[in-house]
């Protein structure tokens, strides 16, 4: 009996840009200083929050309730989300424009690497760099888990949320980077994108609220799908128990964890779209085939 042939899966190929970027960045002191400052900020926030929550420490008659430690979790995580939102544009908005400034972009574009692979590589390397920061904050957050009573599942979900948020902001940064020639303009443009995204979800929500109808809850939950802030709040509320943002929603799946997952998927789709747009922007031959098709079409009309 012939033995079935098993073929070992091919070697996993890491995007060369990710490999190169990580190698280059790990040799500079920038990332070390970045992590140091990031941890410092988180530590300051952590101690300040401790002080607010446990101000009765100074009193001899105070009896500690470990459940209070759970309040540290949304505070630290919230600050981390803000830091990601601030840092990701700085990392990604210079990704393409930086290559252009350094005059290395043309060399990349003459290789077999597709614009999509270049953009993907840039986003991946930025997200990995961001994850270094996020992983560095786990010990602080873990206090809420070991003492406050949150589960490891909650930590895992929070990490996934950080990852999706980093991909979204990174994609925005990359897209902005393809629109500008200077890195600083790209960073500012990414912050403008935040504003546009926020407005896109909040403004229609306000209109719905003002003209409230019986189905307004469902409409709002759909509109807020692309709002990362709403997703993070909803996620924390679900973890900590109690009411959620869309708890009164009559459409079951459009609230609770189902809504959070949908929101994550929506954000990943937006990220994918932004990356496609960025790839289209940097492709020097974009429209070359379309130009030909258009000519053929025009010619067909002319001959008829």
């Amino acid at each position, binding site marked *: 009996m012939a033995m079935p042939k098993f073929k070992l899966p091919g070697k996993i*190929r890491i995007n*060369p840009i990710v*490999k*190169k970027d990580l*190698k*280059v960045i790990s*040799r*500079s002191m920038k990332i070390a200083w970045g992590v140091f400052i990031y941890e410092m900020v988180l530590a300051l926030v952590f101690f300040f929050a401790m002080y607010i929550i446990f101000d009765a420490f100074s009193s001899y008659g105070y009896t500690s309730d470990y459940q209070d430690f759970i309040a540290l979790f949304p505070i630290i995580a919230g600050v981390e989300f803000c830091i990601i939102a601030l840092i990701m544009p700085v990392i990604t908005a210079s990704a393409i424009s930086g290559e252009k400034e*350094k*005059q*290395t972009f*043309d*060399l*990349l*574009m*003459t*290789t*077999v*690497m*597709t614009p999509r692979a270049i953009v993907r590589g840039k986003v991946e390397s930025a997200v990995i760099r961001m994850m270094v920061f996020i992983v560095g904050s786990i010990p602080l957050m873990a206090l809420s888990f070991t003492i406050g009573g949150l589960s490891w599942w909650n930590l895992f979900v929070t990490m996934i949320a950080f990852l999706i948020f980093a991909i979204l902001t990174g994609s925005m940064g990359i897209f902005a980077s393809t629109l500008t020639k200077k890195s600083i303009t790209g960073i500012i443009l990414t912050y403008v994108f935040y504003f546009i995204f926020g407005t896109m979800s909040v403004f229609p929500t306000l209109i719905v609220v003002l003209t409230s109808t019986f189905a307004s809850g469902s409409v709002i939950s759909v509109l807020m799908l692309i709002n990362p802030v709403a997703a993070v709040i909803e996620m924390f509320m679900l973890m900590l128990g109690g009411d959620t943002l869309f708890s009164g929603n009559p459409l079951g799946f459009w609230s609770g964890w189902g809504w959070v997952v949908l929101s994550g998927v929506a954000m990943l789709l937006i990220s994918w779209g932004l990356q496609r747009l960025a790839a289209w922007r940097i492709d*020097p*031959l*974009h*429209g*070359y*085939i379309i*130009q*030909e098709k*258009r*000519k*053929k079409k*025009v*010619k067909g009309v*002319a001959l008829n």
Partner: protein
Amino acid sequence: MLYLERLIKNYGSFRAVDGLSLHVPKGDLFGFVGPNGAGKTTSIRMLCGLLKPDFGNIYIAGYELRRQSESVRRCIGYVPDFFGVYDNLKVREYMEFYGSIYGIEDMDIKKMTGDLLELVSLSGREEDYVDGLSRGMKQRLCVARALLHNPELLVLDEPSSGLDPGARVEMKELLMNLNSMGKTIIISSHILSDIAEMCTSVGIMNRGRLVTAGKMDDILEMGRNTHHVIISVSSDTQKAALCLKELPGIELVSLRENEMIVNFDGTDQELNRIIGSLMTAGVMVSGFRREETNLETLFMQLTSGAPQPGMPGQQPMGIPGQQQMGIPGQQQMGIPMQQPMGMPGQQSMRMPMQQPMGMPGQQPMGMPAQQPVMQQETEMQQPEAQQTGDIQPEQQPAGEEVTNTQQGDMGNGNAEV
């Protein structure tokens, strides 16, 4: 190896490349020369896929850039005039990075890196940081990088710019060495002596057009067929030019400050008589000499007084018949029209007006037979350029229409003047 078919590139209303057609056969070392702004870099960027042509097609090693860009990029190694390097990256890692982009195995990259660095005289520099290398070394490293995936065509844009004489000589030797190994090389440069020394064929561009192209020997021969005499005058050159027009057997090619270049195919005694006649007419002749013909002088002749694109009554070079260069309205520079790129014994280069690519029954030389797409393409696009007006005629400057009509004729191989 390389076919460019009627490439057009506009920057706004400025036409940077105007109907460039070119064929470079396999194994050639082709030099692209022209003054600043002639369209060399734009052409090179288009053929490397860094710029989208507004019109025309590019074929490299049988692949069409428009549809098979990845295959084309696999066939090209590109060395730009200015390029940056990544900080904190070693020479070995730099090569590894580009090798991994082409999907080359790590072990192969290691081996090839050693060989290539030896080829470009950078052995022992593997562990040096790239940004610490000198400009000449970086340039050679860039050539090594471009060769990593063993491309069939190497394209270099001003590789010697900014290099000291020693590095320039090294670069020249490297390119000649690569060419002797069978690589097809296209190089653009301002250093005409280098081009004349190392290139097997040359194309001269001016104002977006290919003024002439062909095998180096044939191009130089074309220059030798002219009989230029430079007459230096210390009086009014305009007056001298008028006097000259009255004299038989001599024609003015161009006027410079205190210098007239004339075409004169006669003996030294006849020339002496002409100079005497000029002096008798009151022209202060301070000297005269026969012009030596090399690529530099030919380049100056072809580019200094080239006709304005689209100027009525003038034609770009290469149209059967008489060429007109220099002052409009005068019969000038009577280079016998021997079709520089179709000379006997030289079948590889074609001028734009020659046999168009993809003409039924005539496969262009060196073109793989696997290109039915290209033939359809060409047949379809030839009349289309005029029928559909898709070249954006509204953007063309005045007089451009005449030029395009000429080009259309040229492209169909039936240029009539």
